[in-house]
């Protein structure tokens, strides 16, 4: 459960900011001055001034109180400043943690880019920031104000102080005891709300589909269930709110009752009228508002704080020990288990650029493998196209070769280096992967193009741009130094930028994973031919079958029987390939791109 994590994180955040907290406490003490002196000064003003017929004397005592109020108010300002010094660094810490966590999860092997992290950053972190500040404010406010009121009571009538403190303690105890349950219920309510939102979003996004399937009743009743669960959670929270009110009642109203019932007796013992009045001032203007604020503050914002922080901590765990530590231990050590399964064959003169041995990958232990026992070699300088129906595992193959996912068994080597166990930056020097979804970030066009090779001069960058037929795009955008708004580019333009970036990369192996699917066929051919001429090895995961006709060798993936060969060999041997090519060629004109072999 997130409870201990929340407590530990909160505690650490406070301890790290001890000095700011010290300032906060000092100013809080000053702020409590009117609460400390209020009752006593009112008592004196009444006893020695107003009741004694000396209005000026009474006014003087009240003037003292007004002064204390002004000093306290000035301190209140300082309290907020000190609070900012505690809260802002904590927000920085959490934001950093969310960003770290999201990027780590998005880029780890088999990880997922979860856009919910953006909501965590903009919404949840902000909720924690606000509620953390609020929580600190009410808790320390209560401690100082209640402490001051009790001290003041002690000075007025020591017996009364005890009689008032007892119900206050009971009220706080009732509240404290119910807090863990309140946190649980609050969390349940948040979860119920999210479930309702998700289920409603899914049902309404699919309104057309639901109507088309005649599944109205089923879907509506599924959402109904969430509505009922949410109402249940709300009712539970209402009961919790009642419990809170009860603890406020016990803690703040019982002292008044005690005071009233004891007053006649105390007056007979010699307590002055002013002192009775002062005691009432302490209870009703000191204790009551402070207790009210802390119970409502902790019960409202405090619960939201605990639940939201717990959620952030769960979704953005602290950094793991860097994986580099594990991999640095065996740079040239024995290859990891599984590589031994298939013997490695002798390499050609230039060496194997890619060497896959018995590669198997599946999404879960129960799942059928996406790739089973795949063995494939690509010689240095070769140009290979991978084709197959959608869902045949083409992109998985690209990810395995690039080392973005880990195979269940088998091995992959790039230029003789085992992919498993090689640190990511070393892999990045060996190969460059261009995925379908092109990454273009806001900044200058030049920065985007130099992403993988920061030291490239303008001439080199422009040469790459022209080789890929992106000159017109660069001109339109206003040159290399022009600022770029990624959202203003079309999907094809983004792919062109990503391709030029990869063209510049120092790595010799280039893997295009449907990286040109949004380009028109002519531009796609230009890009692929440029990469083929670039030198080094080229693997193209093909979106259109025309990519296969430009490659020296083709790998057909379909179900469990991968098959490699030249275009002609595959036409003869692979029914799937025939199907892919055949139906393409059967298509009536206009086929604007001639299917001639490159």
């Amino acid at each position, binding site marked *: 459960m997130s409870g201990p994590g929340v407590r530990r994180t909160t505690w650490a955040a406070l301890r790290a900011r001890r000095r700011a907290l010290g300032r906060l406490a000092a100013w809080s003490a000053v702020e409590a001055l009117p609460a400390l002196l209020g009752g006593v000064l009112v008592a004196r003003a*009444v006893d020695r001034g107003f009741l004694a017929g000396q209005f000026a004397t009474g006014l003087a005592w009240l003037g003292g109180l007004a002064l204390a109020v002004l000093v306290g108010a000035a301190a209140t300002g300082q309290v907020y400043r000190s609070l900012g010094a505690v809260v802002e660094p904590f927000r920085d810490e959490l934001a950093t943690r969310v*960003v770290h966590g999201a990027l780590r999860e998005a880029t780890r092997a088999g990880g997922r880019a979860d856009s919910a992290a953006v909501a965590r950053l903009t919404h949840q972190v902000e909720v924690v920031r606000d509620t953390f500040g609020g929580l600190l404010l009410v808790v320390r406010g209560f401690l100082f104000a209640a402490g001051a009121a009790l001290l003041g009571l002690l000075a007025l009538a020591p017996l009364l102080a005890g009689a008032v403190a007892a119900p206050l303690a009971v009220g706080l105890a009732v509240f404290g005891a119910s807090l863990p349950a309140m946190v649980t219920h609050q969390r349940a309510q948040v979860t119920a709300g999210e479930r309702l939102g998700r289920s409603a979003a899914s049902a309404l996004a699919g309104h057309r589909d639901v109507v088309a399937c005649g599944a109205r009743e089923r879907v509506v009743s599924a959402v109904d269930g969430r509505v009922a669960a949410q109402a249940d959670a709300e009712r539970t929270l209402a009961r919790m709110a009642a419990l809170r009110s009860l603890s406020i009642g016990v803690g703040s109203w019982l002292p008044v009752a005690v005071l*009233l019932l004891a007053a006649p007796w105390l007056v007979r013992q010699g307590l002055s009228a002013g002192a009775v009045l002062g005691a009432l001032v302490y209870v009703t203007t000191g204790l009551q508002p402070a207790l009210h604020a802390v119970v409502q503050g902790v019960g409202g914002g405090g619960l939201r704080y605990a639940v939201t922080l717990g959620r952030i901590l769960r979704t953005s765990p602290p950094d793991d020990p860097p994986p580099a530590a594990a991999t640095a231990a065996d740079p040239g050590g024995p290859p990891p288990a599984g590589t031994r399964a298939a013997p490695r064959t002798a390499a050609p003169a230039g060496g194997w650029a890619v060497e896959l041995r018995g590669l198997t990958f599946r*999404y879960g232990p129960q799942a059928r493998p996406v790739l089973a026992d795949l063995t494939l070699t690509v010689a240095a300088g070769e140009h290979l196209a991978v084709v197959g129906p959608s*869902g045949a595992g083409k992109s998985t193959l690209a990810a395995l070769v690039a080392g973005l996912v880990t195979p269940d068994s088998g091995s992959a080597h790039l230029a003789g280096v085992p992919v498993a166990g090689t640190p990511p930056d070393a892999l990045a020097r060996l190969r460059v992967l261009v995925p379908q979804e092109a*990454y273009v970030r806001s900044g200058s066009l030049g920065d985007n193009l130099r992403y993988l090779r920061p030291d490239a001069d303008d001439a080199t960058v422009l040469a790459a741009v022209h080789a890929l037929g992106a000159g017109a795009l660069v001109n339109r955008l206003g040159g290399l130094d022009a600022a770029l708004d990624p959202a203003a580019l079309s999907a094809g333009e983004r792919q062109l930028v990503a391709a030029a970036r990869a063209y510049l990369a120092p790595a010799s192996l280039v893997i295009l994973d449907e990286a040109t699917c949004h380009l028109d066929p002519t531009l796609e051919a230009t890009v692929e031919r440029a990469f083929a001429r670039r030198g080094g090895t080229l693997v193209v995961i093909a979106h259109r079958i025309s990519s296969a006709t430009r490659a020296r060798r083709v790998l057909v993936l379909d179900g469990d029987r991968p098959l490699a060969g030249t275009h002609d060999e595959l036409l003869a041997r692979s029914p799937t390939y025939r199907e892919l090519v055949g139906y393409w060629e059967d298509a009536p004109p206009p086929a604007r791109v001639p299917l001639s072999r490159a």
Partner: protein
Amino acid sequence: MGAPTGSDRLLRRVVRDGGGWTVLLGAVALTGAAAELALPAALGLAVDAAVGGDGSLRWPAAACGLVAVLMVTDVLADVASGYGAARATARLRRRLLRHLFACDVRTVRRYPVGDLVGRLAGQAADAGQAGTAVVLGVVALLPPVGSVVALTLLEPLLGVTLLGGLALLAVLMRTFVTDASAAVAGYQRVLGVLAGRLLEALGGARTIAAAATVERERDRVLAALPELRGYGQLGWRLLARASARTAAVGPLLQVAVVAVGGYALTAGWLSPGQLVAAVQYAALGAGLGAVLATLNRLVRSRAAAGRIAEPLAHPVRPDGTEPLPPGRGELRLRGVGVRAEDGRPVLDGIDLTVPAGAMVAVVGRSGAGKSTLAAVAGRLHDPDVGEVLLDGVPLRRLSPPALRRAVGHAFDRPVLVGETVHDAVGLGLPAGSAPPPDGAAPATAAVLTAARAAQVADVVARLPEGFRTRLVDAPFSGGEAQRLGLARAFPAERLLVLDDATSSLDTATEHRIARAVAAGARGRTRLVVTHRATTAAAADLVAWLDGGRLRAVAPHRRLWADPAYRAVFAPDGATR
């Protein structure tokens, strides 16, 4: 129908929906307010009795009784307002949900999904508070207003002092609101920059992972953090200034009341007990500002009710009752016309017969009305004029179960609905075969057959838990989703309407699916919207739509001679 009247009527209904809880809340809140107003007076009398040496416990006991009443009413008010709001909110949500699903596709499509979810989840909760807000809004006025009156009755000067102080407080609060907005706006802007960069980096996760540039990206996102902190601290400074002012005004107000009361005490106009009462009334009266918050809640409830009343105002689509007569799925459109919201014709005078068991391709440029034709062919909505008949019966006279058993729809971008992949494929199936089976079987027979025909069974088998994989854990590509959408439509018995439903598939897969569809023993009628010439060529007839009218109905071979027809299939609609 005007929105304001609709929202007020809805608001009244919400208040009624709170039922007994709203009544209880009203009773409890009134009792509490009365006790709150009586308490200072009782306290004052009790103090006077004590100070005066009167040994009687009458007034102290009375004050204690009032305290007890206050404690009980506070607790009951919490329960009553929470339970009442929960009930009203749930009823409102159910009503909106049922209404939306009783409306046709065209009506609901006008609203973005996020907007509707916002209304259902967010604004329904706000509107559900209406009962509480009305009751508390009215009752919350009583103690502060009553206090000002009581104070003025005790001593007019005291009432004037309190009102003057409150006015000062209101002015100070207002200045703070204008001051802080600049800091808040700056903060939000920088936060937006941070979020934007994070979103960019998440979108490029694969590139970043491959390039091993995670740390560079992280630093880039977090580079805006110092600026964010700057704006944050500016906000705290502004808050500090404002709260210093308000922290002074409230207590000074009470000191002023004590001073004025003290003068009255010296002059003998007040007793010490009355001074106690005055201090208490002053504190209650200072709560007038908080009352504005409850009024605010009422305003919010009303605005939310307006947002909910809007979709509720659309008329629902009447369901038919007739069963389907025997037949093999002949589809006829007679004089079908559909208009857009702005009155522009989308379909105009369409007369088309799709013979039983035949495949008719619907082609045309973007905006020619193809999807609208597909939608009326399966009664996703009714045409504005004309009639659509399946085996001689108008679709609007068919009972919903009969209609859905007969007609299946598949879409360009299907939305998969349900918990698991199995649920998504089984959406249109009877309750017996829709959810995953209890035993070890991967799927029910109906779901498995449909998935195989749509060439998607292999894709599902590779998921971590096969058909039981949760949809949120299975990010499907466009082509995979299309195949699941096809599988979902497959069990339909007489007519399949495929609206560009294979556009993301490679040609090999598309052909395999077409074979499976055609080979069905039942020989269903097919209406296929397409952009591909290959698909049109495979159809028995092509219906060529142009600007909402039927330009020709003929085999593809015959139409192909016409350059205008060929231009329909050119990429991006380019003419040459």
